[in-house]
């Protein structure tokens, strides 16, 4: 693949890549921009190559995700959690329109699968590929994530109604 084709692929996914970088960086905008730059640099330096053009989006998302993990680890912002981790109690200040704060309450893997499926219109199989886990495991994260997010949304709405 020549640099022009690569340039075209990166440009066509640029907006989504930026939003995904934000989601991987706990919605920290500046960090997300740095991560995106570093991910592009890795690609342009040939540290990672795209073999199947039809998988360009999953390939790019995977690079961004691992770059973000590295950056968060360097900054000491990674807290390892078990998959069975339950969301913390909702702070009363969380607004029902504060979508980022609500989604942040989900465990990491569940949050990522849910974002990929609902926000980025990917399949569970594609999510599994990005997370480098089995499709069955990704499906479990998806089901649990969905259930927890529904609970969280309902909880926030109830809190808001009580507050009025």
């Amino acid at each position, binding site marked *: 693949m020549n*640099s022009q084709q690569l*340039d075209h692929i*990166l*440009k066509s996914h*640029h*907006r989504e890549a*930026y*939003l995904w970088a*934000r989601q991987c960086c706990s919605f920290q*905008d500046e960090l997300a*921009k740095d991560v*995106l*730059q570093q991910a*592009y640099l890795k690609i*342009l*330096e040939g540290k990672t190559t795209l073999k199947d053009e039809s998988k360009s989006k999953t390939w790019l998302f995977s690079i961004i995700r691992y770059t973000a993990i590295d950056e968060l680890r360097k900054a000491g912002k990674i807290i390892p959690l078990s998959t069975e981790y339950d969301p913390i109690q909702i702070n009363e200040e969380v607004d029902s*329109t504060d*979508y*980022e704060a*609500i*989604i942040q309450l989900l465990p990491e893997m569940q949050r990522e699968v*849910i974002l990929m499926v*609902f*926000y980025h219109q990917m399949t569970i199989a594609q999510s599994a590929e990005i997370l480098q886990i089995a499709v069955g495991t990704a499906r479990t994260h998806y089901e649990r994530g*969905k259930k927890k*997010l*529904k609970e969280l*949304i309902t909880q926030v709405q109830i809190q808001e109604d009580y507050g009025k």
Partner: protein
Amino acid sequence: MENNEQLEQFFDQMKKQDGHLKSPAFPLLKKRRVNLWIPIGIAASVILAFMLIKEPKAIHDRPGEVVIITLHTDENGDQHFTIEQTTHLDTWESPTTSLLTQY
């Protein structure tokens, strides 16, 4: 059929909110420009090296005139020297050749 209406609504709203975010400028791809300079640099170095390395000059200086001194013995047994001046030598005899025959 899954009932994901609540979640779909949630993410639709989230996307609307994200619509206000400004994407960072797409970085310019400078890699190609940098790469182009490498072969140019190598070619320039090779050309420069060829220009600087001097070709060894062939020695064209001919010796000046050669003086040939020949010793002749005439019929009376007297010896005479003949001195000739020329720019080249057709034959050359080692000064010690006589030792091989006359010793």
